[in-house]
């Protein structure tokens, strides 16, 4: 098996919110001693580690055990809710992927589709093929740019 670098991430749910000072102390210790990274999540905390190995099947499980044992020194009622390992390339690709897609208003949609705003409004009410908005604000509906491009291509066909 070829040597590769993996990102290992464990998420724990914690019943009581960890105090900032305690979490910062844990983070500092984990990072300085082991190179693990500790951060707060909405429901608890995460611990991640980068591991270079040619045997991820064996090595990653061993590190999970060590991280779990270490965490139990600090938090007694933590529940592991997610355990994930991915390659370095996948981790980088995930960060590069926007979690908020480009959005378009009626005016934007008119520009993308090369028509007037009135025509967009007409399509909205009359065309079943016109994409549904993903959000609504006071100024009106918002669509994903991608859905509008798809509609434009369907018009061209």
């Amino acid at each position, binding site marked *: 098996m070829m040597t590769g670098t993996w990102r290992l991430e464990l998420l724990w749910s914690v019943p009581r919110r960890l105090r900032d000072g305690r979490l910062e102390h844990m983070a500092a210790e984990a990072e300085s001693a082991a190179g693990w990274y500790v951060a707060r999540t909405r429901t608890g905390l995460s611990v991640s*580690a980068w*591991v270079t190995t040619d045997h991820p099947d064996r090595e990653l499980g061993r590190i999970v055990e060590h991280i779990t044992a270490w965490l139990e020194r600090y938090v007694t009622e933590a529940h592991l809710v997610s355990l994930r390992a991915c390659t370095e390339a996948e981790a980088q690709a995930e960060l590069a992927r926007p979690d908020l897609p480009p959005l378009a208003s009626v005016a934007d949609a008119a520009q*993308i589709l090369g028509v007037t705003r009135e025509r967009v409004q007409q399509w909205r009410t009359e065309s079943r093929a016109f994409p549904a908005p993903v959000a609504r604000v006071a100024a009106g509906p918002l669509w994903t740019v991608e859905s509008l491009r798809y509609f434009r291509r369907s018009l061209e066909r």
Partner: protein
Amino acid sequence: MAEPGASGPRTCTPAIADGPTVVTWARSQGWQVHVARDTGRVRFAAPSGAFVASWTEADPTRLADVLTALRRYGLVWPPPARRPRTASR
């Protein structure tokens, strides 16, 4: 009792963004970002005030972990393009 580091290899991955960009963007989204002058340690707290993660400028390789943590806590990343519809045409 387990000691951190007993598991063996410790590695890091190359940075995928630069620190100042992350700091500026997080602040613009209401995050409280404090940079310690003496250590260079950057402390990220959510708009609610809760500490989420920290990072040292001397360790740029750790930025991917910081970004993952901030994103998981609700910070939009990467920042949207200034005018995506213009760029897409």
